[in-house]
Protein backbone atom coordinates (compact mmCIF):
# COMPACT_ATOMS: atom_id res chain seq x y z
CA UNK A 1 0.00 0.00 0.00
CA UNK A 2 1.56 3.28 -1.05
CA UNK A 3 1.03 6.34 1.02
CA UNK A 4 0.45 9.22 -1.26
CA UNK A 5 -0.30 11.73 1.42
CA UNK A 6 1.46 14.82 0.30
CA UNK A 7 1.71 17.90 2.42
CA UNK A 8 0.96 21.46 1.53
CA UNK A 9 4.11 21.87 -0.51
CA UNK A 10 3.90 18.61 -2.42
CA UNK A 11 6.42 16.95 -0.13
CA UNK A 12 5.44 13.48 1.09
CA UNK A 13 4.05 13.81 4.61
CA UNK A 14 4.90 11.35 7.27
CA UNK A 15 3.03 8.14 6.73
CA UNK A 16 -0.61 8.70 7.58
CA UNK A 17 -3.29 7.15 9.64
CA UNK A 18 -4.56 3.79 8.47
CA UNK A 19 -8.14 4.46 9.43
CA UNK A 20 -8.71 8.07 8.44
CA UNK A 21 -8.16 9.25 4.89
CA UNK A 22 -5.72 12.10 4.60
CA UNK A 23 -7.13 15.39 3.31
CA UNK A 24 -6.18 16.07 -0.29
CA UNK A 25 -3.28 18.41 -0.83
CA UNK A 26 -4.46 22.00 -0.60
CA UNK A 27 -7.65 21.10 1.32
CA UNK A 28 -8.89 23.94 3.48
CA UNK A 29 -9.80 21.63 6.37
CA UNK A 30 -9.10 23.78 9.40
CA UNK A 31 -7.83 21.20 11.81
CA UNK A 32 -5.31 19.55 9.53
CA UNK A 33 -4.05 22.21 7.11
CA UNK A 34 -0.82 23.94 7.91
CA UNK A 35 -1.02 27.67 8.40
CA UNK A 36 0.75 30.24 6.36
CA UNK A 37 1.04 33.86 7.26
CA UNK A 38 2.64 36.77 5.45
CA UNK A 39 6.09 35.32 6.08
CA UNK A 40 5.38 31.81 4.86
CA UNK A 41 4.59 28.60 6.70
CA UNK A 42 4.30 29.30 10.38
CA UNK A 43 2.57 26.32 12.00
CA UNK A 44 1.48 22.82 11.14
CA UNK A 45 0.28 19.65 12.81
CA UNK A 46 3.28 17.49 13.63
CA UNK A 47 1.86 14.78 11.40
CA UNK A 48 1.99 11.21 12.59
CA UNK A 49 0.02 8.00 12.25
CA UNK A 50 -2.96 7.62 14.56
CA UNK A 51 -1.20 5.03 16.69
CA UNK A 52 1.88 7.12 17.51
CA UNK A 53 2.05 8.53 21.03
CA UNK A 54 4.53 11.12 22.27
CA UNK A 55 5.99 10.19 25.67
CA UNK A 56 6.94 12.65 28.41
CA UNK A 57 8.97 11.57 31.43
CA UNK A 58 9.02 13.28 34.82
CA UNK A 59 12.29 12.35 36.48
CA UNK A 60 11.52 13.51 40.01
CA UNK A 61 8.48 15.07 41.64
CA UNK A 62 9.68 18.63 41.23
CA UNK A 63 10.71 18.23 37.59
CA UNK A 64 8.63 19.01 34.54
CA UNK A 65 7.67 16.25 32.16
CA UNK A 66 10.23 16.12 29.37
CA UNK A 67 9.69 14.72 25.88
CA UNK A 68 11.54 11.42 25.53
CA UNK A 69 10.35 9.97 22.20
CA UNK A 70 7.38 8.05 20.84
CA UNK A 71 5.72 4.65 21.05
CA UNK A 72 3.25 2.92 18.79
CA UNK A 73 0.20 1.79 20.77
CA UNK A 74 -3.52 1.31 20.16
CA UNK A 75 -4.61 3.55 23.05
CA UNK A 76 -3.40 5.72 25.92
CA UNK A 77 -3.27 3.02 28.58
CA UNK A 78 -1.19 0.68 26.46
CA UNK A 79 1.01 3.63 25.45
CA UNK A 80 1.77 4.34 29.13
CA UNK A 81 2.41 0.68 29.92
CA UNK A 82 4.83 0.39 27.00
CA UNK A 83 6.46 3.77 27.59
CA UNK A 84 7.62 2.66 31.04
CA UNK A 85 9.93 -0.04 29.71
CA UNK A 86 10.79 1.64 26.44
CA UNK A 87 11.83 4.98 27.93
CA UNK A 88 12.60 4.65 31.64
CA UNK A 89 14.80 1.58 31.95
CA UNK A 90 17.88 3.60 32.80
CA UNK A 91 16.45 6.94 33.82
CA UNK A 92 14.66 7.90 37.03
CA UNK A 93 10.93 8.42 36.58
CA UNK A 94 8.00 9.15 38.83
CA UNK A 95 5.39 9.92 36.21
CA UNK A 96 4.69 9.55 32.51
CA UNK A 97 2.47 11.47 30.14
CA UNK A 98 1.42 10.28 26.71
CA UNK A 99 -0.39 12.25 24.04
CA UNK A 100 -1.33 11.31 20.50
CA UNK A 101 1.46 12.69 18.33
CA UNK A 102 -1.05 13.81 15.70
CA UNK A 103 -2.55 16.22 18.26
CA UNK A 104 0.72 18.10 18.52
CA UNK A 105 1.00 21.31 16.56
CA UNK A 106 4.37 22.84 15.87
CA UNK A 107 5.78 26.12 14.72
CA UNK A 108 7.48 25.66 11.38
CA UNK A 109 11.21 25.86 10.88
CA UNK A 110 10.46 28.79 8.58
CA UNK A 111 9.11 30.63 11.62
CA UNK A 112 12.28 30.17 13.70
CA UNK A 113 13.33 33.71 12.86
CA UNK A 114 10.40 35.09 14.85
CA UNK A 115 11.99 33.82 18.06
CA UNK A 116 15.18 35.75 17.52
CA UNK A 117 14.86 39.23 19.07
CA UNK A 118 15.52 42.12 16.73
CA UNK A 119 16.07 44.76 19.38
CA UNK A 120 17.69 44.99 22.79
CA UNK A 121 15.68 43.11 25.40
CA UNK A 122 17.94 43.67 28.35
CA UNK A 123 15.04 45.32 30.18
CA UNK A 124 13.83 41.74 30.77
CA UNK A 125 17.00 40.95 32.60
CA UNK A 126 17.20 43.73 35.16
CA UNK A 127 19.48 45.95 33.18
CA UNK A 128 23.22 45.56 32.73
CA UNK A 129 25.43 43.50 35.03
CA UNK A 130 26.95 46.61 36.54
CA UNK A 131 23.50 48.02 37.24
CA UNK A 132 22.50 44.71 38.84
CA UNK A 133 25.49 44.71 41.12
CA UNK A 134 24.77 48.27 42.19
CA UNK A 135 21.15 47.36 42.95
CA UNK A 136 22.21 44.40 45.06
CA UNK A 137 24.68 46.38 47.04
CA UNK A 138 21.83 48.54 48.20
CA UNK A 139 19.54 48.18 51.20
CA UNK A 140 17.68 45.42 49.31
CA UNK A 141 20.67 43.15 49.68
CA UNK A 142 21.39 44.27 53.22
CA UNK A 143 17.91 43.28 54.32
CA UNK A 144 18.19 39.71 52.98
CA UNK A 145 17.84 36.89 55.48
CA UNK A 146 18.37 33.12 55.16
CA UNK A 147 14.70 32.41 55.87
CA UNK A 148 13.65 34.61 52.94
CA UNK A 149 14.89 31.86 50.62
Amino acid at each position, binding site marked *: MTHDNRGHDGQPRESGD*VTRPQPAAGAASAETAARHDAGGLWEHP*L*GAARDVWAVFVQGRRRDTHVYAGDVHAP*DAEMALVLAKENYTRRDPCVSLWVVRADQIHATAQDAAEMFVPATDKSYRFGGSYRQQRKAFQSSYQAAYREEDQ
Partner: protein
Amino acid sequence: MSAMPPVLPDDPEMGRRFTERVQSGEQIEAGEWLPAEYRFEALRLITMHANSEIMGALPEREWIPRAPSLARKMALTAKVQDEVGHGMLLYRVAETLGRSRDEMIADLVAGRARFHNVFHYPAETWADVAIIQVFVDGAAMQTQGALRSCSYAPYSRVLKRICYEEDFHIQLGLDVWRSLAEGTPRQRAMLQDALRRWWTPIIHFFGMPDRVSPHTEKMLAWRIKVKSNEELRQQFLRRFVPVILEYGLEVPDPGLRWQEDEQRYVYTEPDWEELKRVGRGGGPKSAERLALRQRFHEQHAWVREAVNRWLQDHAQDAVA
Protein backbone atom coordinates in the same frame (compact mmCIF):
# COMPACT_ATOMS: atom_id res chain seq x y z
CA MET B 1 14.41 -0.12 -2.77
CA SER B 2 17.72 -0.35 -4.63
CA ALA B 3 17.33 2.57 -7.02
CA MET B 4 15.57 5.83 -6.50
CA PRO B 5 12.21 5.77 -8.23
CA PRO B 6 11.63 8.52 -10.78
CA VAL B 7 10.27 11.68 -9.20
CA LEU B 8 9.57 15.21 -10.28
CA PRO B 9 12.80 17.21 -10.28
CA ASP B 10 13.31 19.37 -7.19
CA ASP B 11 13.15 23.12 -7.34
CA PRO B 12 16.85 23.87 -8.04
CA GLU B 13 16.83 27.03 -5.91
CA MET B 14 15.43 25.19 -2.90
CA GLY B 15 17.92 22.39 -3.52
CA ARG B 16 20.82 24.82 -3.58
CA ARG B 17 19.70 26.56 -0.40
CA PHE B 18 19.25 23.19 1.29
CA THR B 19 22.78 22.08 0.45
CA GLU B 20 24.13 25.44 1.67
CA ARG B 21 22.36 25.05 5.00
CA VAL B 22 23.71 21.55 5.50
CA GLN B 23 27.22 22.56 4.50
CA SER B 24 27.15 25.45 6.96
CA GLY B 25 26.65 22.84 9.70
CA GLU B 26 22.89 23.15 10.14
CA GLN B 27 20.83 20.11 10.90
CA ILE B 28 17.51 19.43 9.23
CA GLU B 29 14.43 18.69 11.30
CA ALA B 30 11.52 16.37 10.58
CA GLY B 31 8.89 17.94 8.37
CA GLU B 32 11.22 20.29 6.53
CA TRP B 33 11.52 20.35 2.75
CA LEU B 34 14.07 17.78 1.50
CA PRO B 35 15.51 17.10 -1.93
CA ALA B 36 13.97 13.87 -3.16
CA GLU B 37 17.36 12.18 -3.40
CA TYR B 38 18.28 13.24 0.13
CA ARG B 39 15.06 11.76 1.44
CA PHE B 40 15.67 8.56 -0.51
CA GLU B 41 19.25 8.12 0.68
CA ALA B 42 18.51 9.03 4.30
CA LEU B 43 15.59 6.63 4.35
CA ARG B 44 17.72 3.86 2.87
CA LEU B 45 20.44 4.38 5.46
CA ILE B 46 18.10 4.60 8.44
CA THR B 47 15.83 1.73 7.37
CA MET B 48 18.85 -0.52 6.91
CA HIS B 49 20.03 0.48 10.36
CA ALA B 50 16.62 -0.24 11.92
CA ASN B 51 16.40 -3.59 10.12
CA SER B 52 19.87 -4.48 11.34
CA GLU B 53 18.96 -3.89 14.98
CA ILE B 54 15.95 -6.20 14.64
CA MET B 55 17.82 -8.90 12.72
CA GLY B 56 20.88 -8.40 14.89
CA ALA B 57 18.90 -9.56 17.90
CA LEU B 58 18.62 -13.03 16.36
CA PRO B 59 22.17 -14.37 16.61
CA GLU B 60 22.60 -13.20 20.19
CA ARG B 61 19.18 -14.16 21.50
CA GLU B 62 20.01 -17.80 20.74
CA TRP B 63 22.30 -17.65 23.75
CA ILE B 64 19.89 -16.10 26.22
CA PRO B 65 18.34 -19.46 27.13
CA ARG B 66 21.83 -20.96 27.42
CA ALA B 67 23.67 -18.18 29.23
CA PRO B 68 25.98 -19.89 31.74
CA SER B 69 25.12 -17.89 34.85
CA LEU B 70 22.21 -15.92 36.28
CA ALA B 71 24.18 -12.70 35.92
CA ARG B 72 25.03 -13.38 32.27
CA LYS B 73 21.46 -14.39 31.57
CA MET B 74 20.08 -11.09 32.83
CA ALA B 75 22.80 -9.01 31.21
CA LEU B 76 22.42 -10.65 27.80
CA THR B 77 18.63 -10.30 27.90
CA ALA B 78 19.06 -6.61 28.71
CA LYS B 79 21.58 -6.15 25.94
CA VAL B 80 19.44 -7.75 23.25
CA GLN B 81 16.46 -5.82 24.60
CA ASP B 82 18.40 -2.61 23.97
CA GLU B 83 18.98 -3.65 20.35
CA VAL B 84 15.28 -4.26 19.83
CA GLY B 85 14.63 -0.88 21.45
CA HIS B 86 17.08 0.75 19.06
CA GLY B 87 15.09 -0.75 16.19
CA MET B 88 12.00 0.89 17.64
CA LEU B 89 13.69 4.30 17.83
CA LEU B 90 15.13 4.00 14.31
CA TYR B 91 11.90 2.93 12.62
CA ARG B 92 10.32 6.02 14.18
CA VAL B 93 12.99 8.22 12.62
CA ALA B 94 12.39 6.52 9.26
CA GLU B 95 8.68 7.21 9.67
CA THR B 96 9.38 10.93 9.77
CA LEU B 97 10.82 10.54 6.27
CA GLY B 98 7.61 9.09 4.91
CA ARG B 99 7.41 5.30 5.36
CA SER B 100 5.23 3.45 7.82
CA ARG B 101 6.74 1.00 10.27
CA ASP B 102 4.33 -1.70 9.16
CA GLU B 103 5.57 -1.33 5.57
CA MET B 104 9.22 -1.47 6.57
CA ILE B 105 8.73 -4.56 8.72
CA ALA B 106 6.66 -6.25 6.02
CA ASP B 107 9.51 -5.60 3.56
CA LEU B 108 12.07 -6.96 6.01
CA VAL B 109 10.11 -10.10 6.77
CA ALA B 110 9.46 -10.73 3.08
CA GLY B 111 13.19 -10.59 2.33
CA ARG B 112 12.89 -7.38 0.29
CA ALA B 113 14.97 -5.26 2.63
CA ARG B 114 18.63 -5.25 3.52
CA PHE B 115 20.39 -5.54 6.84
CA HIS B 116 24.06 -5.56 7.75
CA ASN B 117 26.20 -8.48 6.62
CA VAL B 118 27.32 -9.47 10.11
CA PHE B 119 23.85 -10.59 11.09
CA HIS B 120 23.75 -13.19 8.33
CA TYR B 121 26.35 -15.31 10.13
CA PRO B 122 25.91 -17.99 12.80
CA ALA B 123 26.58 -17.53 16.52
CA GLU B 124 27.90 -21.00 17.09
CA THR B 125 29.14 -20.89 20.68
CA TRP B 126 28.84 -18.85 23.87
CA ALA B 127 32.14 -17.21 22.92
CA ASP B 128 30.47 -15.77 19.83
CA VAL B 129 28.47 -13.61 22.25
CA ALA B 130 31.70 -12.04 23.49
CA ILE B 131 32.92 -11.42 19.94
CA ILE B 132 29.61 -9.90 18.86
CA GLN B 133 29.39 -7.66 21.90
CA VAL B 134 32.95 -6.40 21.65
CA PHE B 135 33.82 -6.43 17.98
CA VAL B 136 30.54 -6.30 16.09
CA ASP B 137 29.07 -3.69 18.42
CA GLY B 138 32.46 -2.00 18.42
CA ALA B 139 32.40 -1.84 14.64
CA ALA B 140 28.86 -0.46 14.65
CA MET B 141 29.95 2.13 17.21
CA GLN B 142 32.46 3.59 14.77
CA THR B 143 29.80 4.20 12.14
CA GLN B 144 27.12 5.27 14.59
CA GLY B 145 29.50 7.56 16.43
CA ALA B 146 30.48 9.34 13.22
CA LEU B 147 26.87 9.68 12.12
CA ARG B 148 25.97 11.53 15.30
CA SER B 149 27.00 14.58 13.29
CA CYS B 150 24.88 13.67 10.27
CA SER B 151 22.56 16.32 8.90
CA TYR B 152 19.20 14.73 9.71
CA ALA B 153 18.49 15.85 13.27
CA PRO B 154 16.06 13.09 14.33
CA TYR B 155 18.63 10.46 13.31
CA SER B 156 21.46 12.37 14.95
CA ARG B 157 19.55 12.56 18.25
CA VAL B 158 18.63 8.88 18.26
CA LEU B 159 22.24 7.94 17.49
CA LYS B 160 23.43 9.80 20.57
CA ARG B 161 21.15 7.68 22.69
CA ILE B 162 22.16 4.52 20.84
CA CYS B 163 25.87 5.24 21.31
CA TYR B 164 25.29 5.85 25.01
CA GLU B 165 23.71 2.41 25.36
CA GLU B 166 26.21 0.66 23.06
CA ASP B 167 28.94 1.80 25.39
CA PHE B 168 27.42 -0.38 28.12
CA HIS B 169 27.22 -3.27 25.69
CA ILE B 170 30.90 -3.09 24.90
CA GLN B 171 31.71 -2.97 28.62
CA LEU B 172 29.57 -6.07 29.18
CA GLY B 173 31.16 -7.72 26.18
CA LEU B 174 34.65 -7.03 27.51
CA ASP B 175 33.66 -8.68 30.78
CA VAL B 176 32.61 -11.86 28.98
CA TRP B 177 35.72 -11.60 26.78
CA ARG B 178 37.93 -11.36 29.87
CA SER B 179 36.31 -14.36 31.58
CA LEU B 180 37.00 -16.47 28.53
CA ALA B 181 40.41 -15.07 27.63
CA GLU B 182 41.62 -15.55 31.21
CA GLY B 183 39.76 -18.80 31.69
CA THR B 184 40.41 -22.43 30.98
CA PRO B 185 42.30 -23.59 27.87
CA ARG B 186 38.97 -24.71 26.41
CA GLN B 187 37.41 -21.29 27.00
CA ARG B 188 40.38 -19.53 25.39
CA ALA B 189 40.26 -21.88 22.43
CA MET B 190 36.52 -21.26 22.04
CA LEU B 191 37.12 -17.52 22.10
CA GLN B 192 39.97 -17.66 19.57
CA ASP B 193 37.87 -19.80 17.27
CA ALA B 194 34.92 -17.41 17.48
CA LEU B 195 37.23 -14.49 16.71
CA ARG B 196 38.60 -16.36 13.71
CA ARG B 197 35.12 -17.04 12.32
CA TRP B 198 33.89 -13.47 12.80
CA TRP B 199 36.97 -11.60 11.60
CA THR B 200 36.19 -11.34 7.88
CA PRO B 201 32.50 -10.41 8.34
CA ILE B 202 33.61 -7.64 10.70
CA ILE B 203 36.18 -6.29 8.22
CA HIS B 204 33.46 -6.51 5.55
CA PHE B 205 31.03 -4.60 7.75
CA PHE B 206 32.47 -1.20 6.89
CA GLY B 207 32.00 -1.81 3.19
CA MET B 208 34.41 -1.61 0.30
CA PRO B 209 36.77 1.35 0.24
CA ASP B 210 34.66 4.17 -1.25
CA ARG B 211 34.95 4.81 -4.94
CA VAL B 212 35.53 8.45 -5.69
CA SER B 213 32.25 9.28 -7.39
CA PRO B 214 29.77 12.13 -7.64
CA HIS B 215 27.40 10.02 -5.57
CA THR B 216 29.84 9.65 -2.67
CA GLU B 217 30.69 13.35 -2.90
CA LYS B 218 27.03 14.25 -2.67
CA MET B 219 26.47 11.98 0.34
CA LEU B 220 29.42 13.65 2.08
CA ALA B 221 28.24 17.15 1.11
CA TRP B 222 24.80 16.36 2.50
CA ARG B 223 26.35 14.75 5.58
CA ILE B 224 24.43 11.53 5.08
CA LYS B 225 27.88 10.07 5.00
CA VAL B 226 30.31 11.60 7.47
CA LYS B 227 33.41 9.45 7.28
CA SER B 228 34.62 7.15 4.55
CA ASN B 229 34.36 3.37 4.85
CA GLU B 230 38.12 3.00 5.09
CA GLU B 231 38.45 5.71 7.75
CA LEU B 232 35.90 3.89 9.90
CA ARG B 233 37.55 0.52 9.35
CA GLN B 234 40.94 1.98 10.36
CA GLN B 235 39.38 3.57 13.44
CA PHE B 236 37.96 0.22 14.43
CA LEU B 237 41.29 -1.60 13.92
CA ARG B 238 43.19 1.03 15.91
CA ARG B 239 40.86 0.60 18.88
CA PHE B 240 40.22 -3.12 18.85
CA VAL B 241 43.37 -4.87 17.62
CA PRO B 242 45.13 -3.87 20.87
CA VAL B 243 42.36 -5.63 22.83
CA ILE B 244 43.15 -8.88 21.03
CA LEU B 245 46.89 -8.51 21.58
CA GLU B 246 46.51 -7.48 25.22
CA TYR B 247 44.96 -10.85 26.01
CA GLY B 248 47.51 -12.80 24.01
CA LEU B 249 45.06 -13.88 21.35
CA GLU B 250 45.85 -14.02 17.67
CA VAL B 251 44.58 -11.58 15.10
CA PRO B 252 43.00 -13.93 12.54
CA ASP B 253 44.54 -12.05 9.60
CA PRO B 254 48.28 -12.91 9.38
CA GLY B 255 48.65 -10.06 6.90
CA LEU B 256 47.51 -7.43 9.38
CA ARG B 257 50.31 -5.00 10.15
CA TRP B 258 50.58 -1.52 11.58
CA GLN B 259 52.35 0.89 9.23
CA GLU B 260 54.00 3.48 11.47
CA ASP B 261 54.83 5.86 8.64
CA GLU B 262 51.31 5.84 7.25
CA GLN B 263 49.68 5.56 10.69
CA ARG B 264 47.33 2.91 9.42
CA TYR B 265 46.87 -0.85 9.34
CA VAL B 266 47.43 -2.84 6.20
CA TYR B 267 45.40 -6.00 6.02
CA THR B 268 44.67 -8.84 3.67
CA GLU B 269 42.13 -7.70 1.12
CA PRO B 270 38.94 -9.61 1.94
CA ASP B 271 36.75 -11.21 -0.68
CA TRP B 272 34.31 -8.45 -1.54
CA GLU B 273 32.17 -10.83 -3.58
CA GLU B 274 31.23 -12.57 -0.35
CA LEU B 275 30.02 -9.25 1.06
CA LYS B 276 27.89 -8.63 -2.02
CA ARG B 277 26.43 -12.14 -1.88
CA VAL B 278 25.63 -11.88 1.80
CA GLY B 279 24.15 -8.40 1.42
CA ARG B 280 21.72 -9.81 -1.14
CA GLY B 281 20.58 -12.46 1.36
CA GLY B 282 23.06 -15.19 0.49
CA GLY B 283 24.73 -15.54 3.88
CA PRO B 284 24.96 -18.80 5.84
CA LYS B 285 22.05 -17.88 8.09
CA SER B 286 20.11 -15.45 5.89
CA ALA B 287 17.34 -17.79 4.80
CA GLU B 288 16.92 -19.42 8.20
CA ARG B 289 16.67 -16.13 10.06
CA LEU B 290 14.23 -14.66 7.58
CA ALA B 291 12.13 -17.79 7.85
CA LEU B 292 12.18 -17.46 11.64
CA ARG B 293 11.03 -13.83 11.44
CA GLN B 294 8.33 -14.79 8.95
CA ARG B 295 7.09 -17.55 11.23
CA PHE B 296 6.59 -15.23 14.16
CA HIS B 297 5.22 -12.46 11.97
CA GLU B 298 2.54 -14.84 10.70
CA GLN B 299 1.92 -16.26 14.16
CA HIS B 300 1.18 -12.77 15.43
CA ALA B 301 -1.01 -11.69 12.49
CA TRP B 302 -4.19 -12.21 14.49
CA VAL B 303 -2.72 -10.21 17.40
CA ARG B 304 -1.99 -7.29 15.07
CA GLU B 305 -5.51 -7.56 13.72
CA ALA B 306 -6.97 -7.58 17.24
CA VAL B 307 -4.92 -4.53 18.18
CA ASN B 308 -5.91 -2.71 14.98
CA ARG B 309 -9.57 -3.34 15.67
CA TRP B 310 -9.09 -2.07 19.23
CA LEU B 311 -7.31 0.99 17.83
CA GLN B 312 -10.22 1.74 15.50
CA ASP B 313 -12.81 1.23 18.21
CA HIS B 314 -10.97 3.68 20.43
CA ALA B 315 -9.92 6.12 17.69
CA GLN B 316 -12.44 8.68 18.83
CA ASP B 317 -11.35 8.61 22.48
CA ALA B 318 -10.60 12.05 23.85
CA VAL B 319 -10.49 13.67 20.42
CA ALA B 320 -10.69 17.43 20.95
